[in-house]
């Protein structure tokens, strides 16, 4: 979940509520679903919230939400914008990253805090909507350091988004004094190298030019020439990415934040060349696009979801207190509904239900009286789960301590330490389901049988009193092409008897009792298995069907697990008891 660092003094200033104490702010933020996680080293509040309201990724965004919450602001707010002077031309752009958007922002008066806030919101947008810059990357530049190329109409100024040979062009990147090629930046610039992976597969790298030359290498790094400082008053924002909607909305969120700092937003013209890749070839866009959208929300649906009755004025009031505008309308046969207008910074509203959630939050969900639903159904257990429980009860009655082990294990524990190999035609020898990027070397496959887990428990409990009669009913799995998932999953019944004097017969006696409890005829014809002592190993046959095996565990396996007592064991498929 996103966390933003917010200076409470700034929050008081931006909301216009000097009288709020830190505790007041924390309580008010909690009401919005924003949780105080602690104080940062710089005495800022660390605020965490769910990743839907990305418009709250800055102190300005959080202040806006609070002002609505306090009732200081109502309804949709759209800042005014000036007509475009600058043009962003997209020409021979890289196919992997075809889109660009942007804005010009004028009249900023940065101080240390507001500049830091600008940096933070960029980072947060990159981490969330921008998917670590893969989907959208932001570049913010000092406008006075840019010299526009002559626009297509002679009055305008333009910059050009294009693709370059990674070795042919040079520029001085941020945090460096050295002229480097884009490839050199990805290879040895301390910040550039972090994002090298995003361009690694590209033949030609993304680049943005003005009249003077290359000044930005998205999504990796900006040039030093246009670096923003506290003295910067006018900015050019450009965003490139793989999806126009995403970068347009990242731009909206950023522009709303800067506007809240008193800046004037000036639109830009985005001009895609006729042969530009992507879906906008030959089109001209006016950005940022602050147009609102509407959702039609049924009154009855609001009432049925929240579970209480509302009158029309209340719904409209709650919408306005959420920063939305609602207007009465009708759908179908005179059914009361609302046209709800959504501001351009809201990226989370996909469906009318999302508006209902806003209205519910404005009403206060915690004010609702819980009510047990008047719906009658018949409950019951699944057959497999009843069978499993019956078998477990029988084992417990036979004196076994029921265990619960992990289904994940590694090859060494599952195979090697039991003396078998994947693909062996013995119990446990199935080919294992393998995990692609395991977190831990201890858990790399799904177990093919339960005996290895039980042996591990014995191994870890040699200091505990014997006898240790352990049993487990749990999942085992192996590759099986005849299954839809390619995996045969089954429940296996594993049992071990470990104590100073124990033999095959002790295991056979318990297995007999288990089989008998389920009305199964038991036969145990001799067999061989590397994990068991030859001559003391048998197949478990229930009602004529092979179900598993039983035997005395081989001393080699016992010693391998650092045990000093003999172990007798059996393992069978749960479904054989059916």
């Amino acid at each position: 979940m996103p966390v933003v660092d917010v200076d409470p003094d700034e929050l008081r200033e931006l909301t216009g509520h000097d009288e709020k104490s830190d505790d007041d702010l924390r309580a008010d933020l909690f009401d919005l679903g924003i949780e105080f996680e602690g104080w940062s080293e710089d005495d800022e509040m660390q605020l965490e919230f769910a990743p839907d309201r990305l418009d709250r990724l800055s102190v300005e965004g959080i202040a806006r939400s609070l002002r609505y919450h306090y009732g200081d602001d109502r309804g949709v707010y759209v800042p005014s914008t000036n007509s475009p002077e600058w043009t962003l031309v997209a020409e021979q752009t890289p196919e992997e990253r075809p889109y660009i958007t942007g804005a010009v922002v004028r009249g900023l008066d940065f101080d240390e805090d507001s500049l830091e806030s600008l940096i933070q919101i960029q980072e947060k947008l990159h981490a969330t909507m921008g998917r670590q810059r893969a989907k959208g990357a932001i570049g913010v530049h000092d406008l006075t350091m840019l010299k526009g190329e002559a626009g297509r109409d002679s009055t305008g100024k333009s910059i050009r988004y294009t693709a370059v040979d990674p070795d042919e062009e040079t520029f001085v990147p941020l945090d460096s004094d050295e002229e480097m090629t884009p490839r050199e930046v990805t290879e040895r610039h301390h910040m550039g190298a972090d994002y090298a992976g995003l361009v690694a597969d590209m033949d030609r790298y993304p680049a943005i030019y003005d009249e003077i030359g290359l000044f930005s290498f998205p999504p990796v790094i900006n040039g030093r020439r246009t670096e923003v400082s506290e003295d910067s008053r006018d900015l050019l924002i450009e965003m490139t990415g793989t999806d126009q909607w995403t970068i347009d909305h990242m731009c909206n969120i950023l522009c709303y934040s800067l506007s809240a700092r008193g800046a004037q937003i000036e639109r830009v013209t985005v001009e895609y060349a006729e042969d530009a890749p992507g879906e906008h070839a030959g089109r001209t866009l006016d950005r940022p696009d602050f147009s609102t959208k509407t959702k039609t929300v049924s009154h009855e649906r609001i009432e049925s979801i929240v579970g209480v009755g509302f009158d029309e004025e209340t719904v409209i009031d709650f919408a306005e207190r959420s920063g939305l505008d609602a207007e009465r309308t009708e759908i179908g046969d005179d059914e009361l509904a609302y046209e709800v207008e959504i501001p351009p910074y809201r990226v989370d509203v996909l469906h009318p239900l999302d508006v209902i959630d806003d209205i519910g939050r404005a009403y206060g969900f915690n004010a609702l009286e819980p009510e047990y639903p008047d719906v009658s159904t018949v409950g019951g257990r699944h057959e497999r789960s009843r069978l499993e429980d019956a078998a477990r009860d029988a084992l417990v009655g036979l004196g076994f301590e029921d265990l619960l082990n992990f289904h994940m294990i590694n090859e060494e524990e599952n195979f090697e330490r039991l003396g078998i190999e994947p693909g062996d035609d013995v119990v446990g020898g199935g080919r294992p389901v393998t995990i692609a990027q395991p977190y831990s070397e201890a858990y790399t496959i799904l177990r093919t049988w339960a005996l290895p887990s039980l042996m591990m428990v014995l191994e870890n409990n040699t200091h505990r009193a014997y006898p240790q009669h352990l049993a487990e009913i749990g999942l085992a799995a192996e590759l099986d092409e005849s299954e839809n998932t390619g995996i045969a999953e089954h429940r296996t019944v594993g049992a071990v008897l470990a104590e100073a004097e124990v033999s095959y017969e002790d295991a056979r006696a318990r297995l007999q009792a288990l089989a008998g409890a389920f009305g199964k005829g038991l036969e145990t014809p001799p067999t061989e298995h590397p994990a068991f002592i030859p001559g003391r190993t048998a197949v478990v046959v229930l009602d004529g069907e092979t179900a598993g095996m039983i035997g005395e565990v081989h001393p080699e396996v016992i010693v391998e697990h650092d045990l000093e007592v003999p172990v007798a064991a059996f393992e069978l498929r749960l479904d054989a008891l059916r």
Partner: protein
Amino acid sequence: MKLPRAQVAVLKTADANEYRAITDVATEADLQSETATGAAFALAEEGLVTVTEETDESITLTEEGEQYVAEGLPERRLYDAALAAGADDDPVDLGTLIGDAGLDGDAVDIALANFARKGYGTVDSGEVAADPDAGSKPDAERVALEAISEGEGVADALAAVLGDDSQTDAEGVLDQLERRGLGDRTESTIRRVQLTDDAVTALMEGVEAAEEVDQLTPDMLTSGEWRDAEFAEYNVEAEAEEITPGTEHVLRQTANRVKDVLVGMGFQEMQGPHADAQFWINDCLFMPQDHPARTHWDQFALSEPDQIDDLPDDVVERVRKAHLEGVGEDGEGYHSPWELDVAKSLDLRGHTTSLSARYLSGYQEGELDPPERYFSVEKVYRNDTLDPTHLLEFFQIEGWVMAEDLSVRDLMGTFTEFYEQFGIEDIEFKPHYNPYTEPSFELFGTHPETGELVEVGNSGIFRQEMLDPLGVNVDVMAWGLSLERLLMLMYGFEDIRDVHGTLCDLQLLRDVEVVY
């Protein structure tokens, strides 16, 4: 008078004129000492004997102590060697003296430490100076060691060798021996027994032993012999041998309790694959394929096998469309790529909502006919860091209700009812965000013991973008909760690894108290 055999034996062996130790009585009467003690107390109850108790302290030598009896104390050997080398006049090299005294290993350190303590002299810069007067008397510790070895009284021996005033210090010498690990002191209770006048009278009148029986046998029952038998008394207060009963694992017990509660509330149980297509795990839940949650949750992807063979085409197409275009007249989709290959790739399920998706689609058990309630208590897998409260595998309690016009209040009422069954009251609902529910709520409950507010689950009403593609046209509200979290609340476990998995501690599992 008829008495049990052991009591008769004690009565006949004890004396009317002096107190005799019960251990001596037992030896003479050929009884176990515990049996004789038991008999003596029984006789005392009858007023036939009086029993006295006193505490006796004895000391035995350790191996090291025995060794010093034979070889002498190391510090004294060093002192003797020093005197022999003339160290009472001029300091002598320590190394030489150690050789002369035949000391090695730990004995060197022991010698040096005690040499200084006893004022035998000083050791400075590797040279030893000895005080000729210090050794004029025998060493008290040595005297005590020898006395213990010979079975003589330490205080008496000290008095004999060192003069009367040393007697008072015997306790100090013994403490010192114990500190040095040369002797072990133990305390024991000595009981003595003496006959009362009543006993003397009884003995004169004649006392005989009743027929005593150790074990009731089938023979005795059938023959009727038991009628004349006197049953030997057992020490019924003594602890018996420990046995380990068969027990159901505590987490299973908790799972079963949850299942009982849910079945009682009208829920049917679901089941389905642990390894499943991301389609059922994520795509059906309206999670965009590039959503950070798909990596944040760090689900285990499989390398072998890596794809499901087959998905229901119609459901796939509707899910794809919901992701790209949204659902409903003014619904919107995600601005994220959607690939069938990603949907078909296999993961270990990160939540059992994959089962809910399978059931809701009708793919698992056929079309559902609302109203319905379903649940599962099954394992889920997350590629996370193992720590006391997080496992790579844990159980998720999943539940949902499918009916017309469900509201947030119904959701709240269901959870309030469910959690009350586990003593967790005052459930609080915090509005939250999930890609697949709207509205969504995190559930917090008050810990019954600590009063702490803890997160107990996550819930919501499934989004249209999830339900429409699955062919569901009524409301479905759902929730998920970690079973282990509930277990820790109910039993107060602090480290879940002690309970679940191959690192489990059998003793801990054996010691778990029953909760019902």
